[in-house]
Structure formats: C-alpha cells, structure tokens
C-alpha cells in the first residue's frame, strides 16, 4: 500500500479508543435507521396484508360498465364468462385462489333502529381462500345451510345490540328493483382493523342472496389472492402483471392491481419514508461532528509530521488525502458495524417480531395492525445507509484535512 495511506491506517489503529468512540455514533445511527426502516416497512406491510386479506384482495376484477357506475353498487353488470375468467386467472403466475363477490346497498334493522350497510355476497368456501375474515369472526360462521345467516361488522352489532344467534332484519332492492326485507340470524360478528368494515359490512352467502334479492348467481366482482412475496415491490409487480393479463384477454373486464387499489396507502408510505430519512440525516450530522473533531485532533497532534512531509516535497493534495483517508476509515468502520448491528436487529424483528399489544396494550395508534409486528428485510436501505455513512465521513474530514494541508511548512516544523 501507498506509504501515505499506511500512515493514515496506522494512526487510526494507534488511536483505537478514539476511533471506536467516534465510529460508535455512526454505528448507532446507522443501525437505528436500518432497524426503524425495517419496522416501518413491516408495519406498512402488515397494514397492507390486512387490507389485502380483509377487503381489497390482490387483484380486483369487475366489468368496465360496472366500474363506470361503481359508487351505486349496481346489480346490472355481472361478469359473464365467469368460468373462463376464473380458469384463466388460476393459470396466471402466483395466483393462489379466486373468489366471487357481489356488493349491494341495504338497510339493517333491529325493529327499533335502522342503519345503512353495504351488503357483500360471498361464496363461503371460495371466499375463505382469498380473505381471512374467518380469523376475525366471533360466532359459528356460515353453516352448510346459510340461507338465513348473516355476518356483520362489530360496530354494527354493537349499535344494534345483537350477538351471534340473535335475529335481525335486512332490507334491500332486489336485482329487479323490488324492495325486499327478510329476517336473518347473526352467524358471526367480525372485528377487523378496518373501521369501514366494522361499521358497515354485512356478509351473506350467494345461496341467501339468490333468494333474498333474486341475484340469480350474479357476480359483479372477482377477487384474486396471490402468493405472498417478501418484497412489497415484487408483490405490486405481480399484481400488476395479473391485472394486465386479464384486461388484455377480456377487454370488457376492468382489472385493478394493488397499485390502484392501495394507491392512497402507498402514497402515505412514501411520505413516511421521508421521515425516516430525516432521522438518519440528524444522526449522521451528529456523527459528522464527531468525525470533524477526531480528524481535527489528529491534525493537531501531527502538525510537525505534516511539516516534515511537506519539507520532503509531499504535495498538499497528498496531505489532504492522508487525513481524508483517516476519516474514511472511521466512517467505514462505523458504517460496517452499523449495517451488521442493523442487520442483526432486522433478523430479530423478522424472526421473532415485536409484540405490539404486549407493549401498547390493544391500542395500535390507528395503525391497522395488532398482534406481533414483524420487520422487513430491505437490502436497499442497508446499502443506502452504508453509502450515506461513508460519504458523511468523507465530507466531514474535508475541513480538517484542508486545514492540515494549508499549514505553513515553517510554522508546522516549529510547532511543539
């Protein structure tokens, strides 16, 4: 190695304590950033998984005609070639299951009160393979004879004072616009992390709906579940791929990938990213001050050495390089340790997880999350934090390094 760089390396090694103390700030900052980012990603991912598993699914397919009028939840535009579409979907890459659903507007009443609700017609067997509602349902759920059974959101149940086994009346316009009302038995109450579901969702089976609103098997929506992918971007890409394939093969259908379905949430994610960026900026600023200080100390201790090197003809640029290199080594040590420590904590967060309810009770701060929060692996973040740490160290060393190079040789040699 170049002797000038050797001098730098040995000086860093000679002052081990100082090096370690300086590097530690950087290590802590980088590890903290990586851990926080993993936790944030995990939180986001948990929220996304919940959205996908409870209501949105990975790809949602309706007809174009339905989409134009979707706010009214019309019963006029069913998916025609249901069997073909379903078969086509199941052949797509990473598609796990497909479930039909039909939504309609309705009123739910307990003879005293009446509340507007969104009726969701499901195929209990197929629905289970796409949505995880069953995990959040209290009560027996749909039986094999589900003609008079209903599952409703927890807020609705509370408001109307019903529990599983109680009777309740549902009224709605039939497919042919006749007003119908029927008595149902509460087969389950769902408590989810999605307040909209809790407040307004009512589930009945196709068997029941065929009878209740003359549905005749009409399906307005197909929901697709995909294999879980570790990386959110991969998942979104998969979802877009399937949506595109469907739109191409069935021009009359309208397929929404998660990019459209979760657009609002995905935008929120980006905003949060900028917060964690702020954190790393602040921490690294502190680390930078430490490095400036340490390299400056190094310069002061070696003023005479600088004088000697310059007297023997070493150029200023080389003096700058020598001290820059010292700062860089400290930055490298700090960043490498930071990434290692960060990776270890991410490993812990992904393998063991962070029990949210144990720490926060059952309030999850509005996040659609509970139970154990798992971290996410994010190699991009680690690479970014590493580069950022090293770059900070290099930049922080510039000032003291230039100070050293700018010393008058005669003054430097006389310095004691």
């Amino acid at each position, binding site marked *: 190695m*170049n*002797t*000038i760089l*050797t*001098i730098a390396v*040995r*000086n860093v090694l*000679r002052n081990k304590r100082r090096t370690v103390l300086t590097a530690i700030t950087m290590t802590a900052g980088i590890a903290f950033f990586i851990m926080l980012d993993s936790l944030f990603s995990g939180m986001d991912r948990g929220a996304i998984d919940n959205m996908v598993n409870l209501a949105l699914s990975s790809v949602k397919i309706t007809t174009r005609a339905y989409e134009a009028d979707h706010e009214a939840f019309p019963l006029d535009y069913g998916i025609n070639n249901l069997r073909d579409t379903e078969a086509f979907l199941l052949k797509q890459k990473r598609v796990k299951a497909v479930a039909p659903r039909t939504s309609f507007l309705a009123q739910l009443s307990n003879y005293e009160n009446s509340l507007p609700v969104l009726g969701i017609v499901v195929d209990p067997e197929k629905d289970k393979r796409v949505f995880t509602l069953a995990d959040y349902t209290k009560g027996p759920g749909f039986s094999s004879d589900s003609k008079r059974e209903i599952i409703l959101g927890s807020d609705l149940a509370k408001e109307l004072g019903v529990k599983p086994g109680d009777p309740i009346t549902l009224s709605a316009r039939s497919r042919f616009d006749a007003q119908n009302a029927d008595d149902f038995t509460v087969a389950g109450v769902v408590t989810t992390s999605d307040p909209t579901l809790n407040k307004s969702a009512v589930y009945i089976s196709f068997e029941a709906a065929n009878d209740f609103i003359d549905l005749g098997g009409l399906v307005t929506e197909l929901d697709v579940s995909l294999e879980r992918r570790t990386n959110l971007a991969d998942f979104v890409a998969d979802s877009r791929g399937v949506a595109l394939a469907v739109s191409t093969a069935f021009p009359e259908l309208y397929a929404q990938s998660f990019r459209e379905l979760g657009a609002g949430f995905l935008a929120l994610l980006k905003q949060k990213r900028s917060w964690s960026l702020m954190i790393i900026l602040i921490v690294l600023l502190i680390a930078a001050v430490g490095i400036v200080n340490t390299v400056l100390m190094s310069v002061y201790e070696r003023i*005479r*050495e600088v*004088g*000697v*090197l*310059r*007297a*023997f*003809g*070493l*150029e200023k640029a080389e003096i700058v390089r020598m001290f820059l290199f010292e700062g860089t080594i400290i930055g490298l040590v700090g960043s490498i340790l930071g990434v290692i420590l960060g990776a270890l904590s991410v490993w812990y967060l992904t393998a063991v997880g962070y029990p949210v309810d144990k720490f926060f009770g059952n309030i999850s701060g509005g996040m659609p999350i509970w139970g154990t929060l798992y971290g996410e692996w994010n190699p991009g973040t680690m690479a970014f934090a590493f580069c950022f740490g090293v770059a900070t160290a290099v930049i922080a060393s510039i000032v003291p390094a230039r100070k050293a190079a700018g010393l008058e*040789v*005669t003054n430097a*040699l*006389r310095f004691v």
Partner: protein
Amino acid sequence: MTILTLKAIRKLYQKGERSVEALRGLDLTIDKGEFLAIVGPSGSGKTTLLNIVGCLDTPTTGTVLYDGTELHDMTERELSEYRKEKISFIFQSYNLIPVLTVRENVELPLVIEKKLGKAEMASRAVDMIRAVGLAGMEDRYPRELSGGQEQRVAIARALVKNPLVVLADEPTANLDSKMAEEIVALMQEINRTRETTFIFSTHDAMVQGHARRVITLHDGSIRSDERKAAE
C-alpha cells in the same frame, strides 16, 4: 563548483505592529561538498536563513540561485517540487514518523519522489540504514530507539535520495555530547565519501569545530565567514 548563491537576502517578519528584520541583506556563495556551520546567538537568524536556503520560505527581497536556477519567481508548488529533488532536512527533534518503521521512514523521501520501483527503494533504504550503522534495526519503530539512533535514522532519511544539499537546524541540540560527537562524525564521513553538501546551524563549539567553514551571524548579518584547511 558553486551550487548556491544568495544575493542581498532580506527577511522581514511582521509581528503585530512591529516588523522584525530577521535577515538584513545577506550575500553568500556555497560550493558543492561544503561542510558548513552557521553559528550565532539566539535570534540571529540561523533558522530563518536555513529555511530560505531550504526553499521552505521565501526572502522578502533578494535572490536565491540554486545550480544557476533562480528561485525567486517560483510558485509554492514549484518550490516543493525543487525540494523534493534536491534538498533534504535533518531536524533538531529528529521528527521521524512514529507509525512508520525505520526502513519505512528512510524510504519515505523516495516514496514522495515516486521515481523508483518498490524493490529499488527498499534496497536503497537498507543500504542507507547500514551506512548509518543501524543494520538489523530496519523493522523497529522510532519509539524503540535512543535519541542518537533516531537521529541516525533521520540522517539516513535525509541522504537516501542523494540530495544536492542537506540542511540541519541544530541537529545535535537534543543529544548528549558523546552522541552529538558521533552524529557529527557520521555527517562528516558521509560528506567526505559522497560529497554531499551539509549546511547546519549549531550552538555547540565541539560541533562547530568539525566544520570546514563557519559563518557567524549577528542580528541578521554575516559577522564572519571563516574557512579551515582540510584536516
């Protein structure tokens, strides 16, 4: 053969309001192979003169001619380039690089010069270390040496690139008289065998006694310039 000519050198230092005239119009000619001592009381301008001769500093007025080259108009970079080629230094407090071994310290001027390959640099350094009587100590660090040994390493470092001139500002001031004697003897021997020009300042009469030419400074002027016949 003249290698260095100083003409009407003046050096002014600004010290706040007052200015100090460290050198007051100095004329001097130095030939190749001289072994020259600069003596004089403290503050007489010895260090200032050596700094100017060593291209570490520039005179306020006057000209320095090295080997016929005028240094007056040189930029700092060019001066540094000149130093790299032709001039070496020995310091009062040795100033070895503490984190480098003896061999690495001696190699340093060659590394800075960037002219030779690795093997050539190493072999020259080892030869030079042997020449100053430190064979076998190549891998020691400065802290493992005595003051006299450190100054020997410094001499080896100064000579390894075969400079035109070696400048030494009080090279023996930190050594006891026995070691000082040894160091001067070593410088003298190198001066004789290699014809390297040595210019050194000193307060020590014994060291001064080894010089073949003695320039006495007083208040920034040359008071006397005496030559002795070769012993």
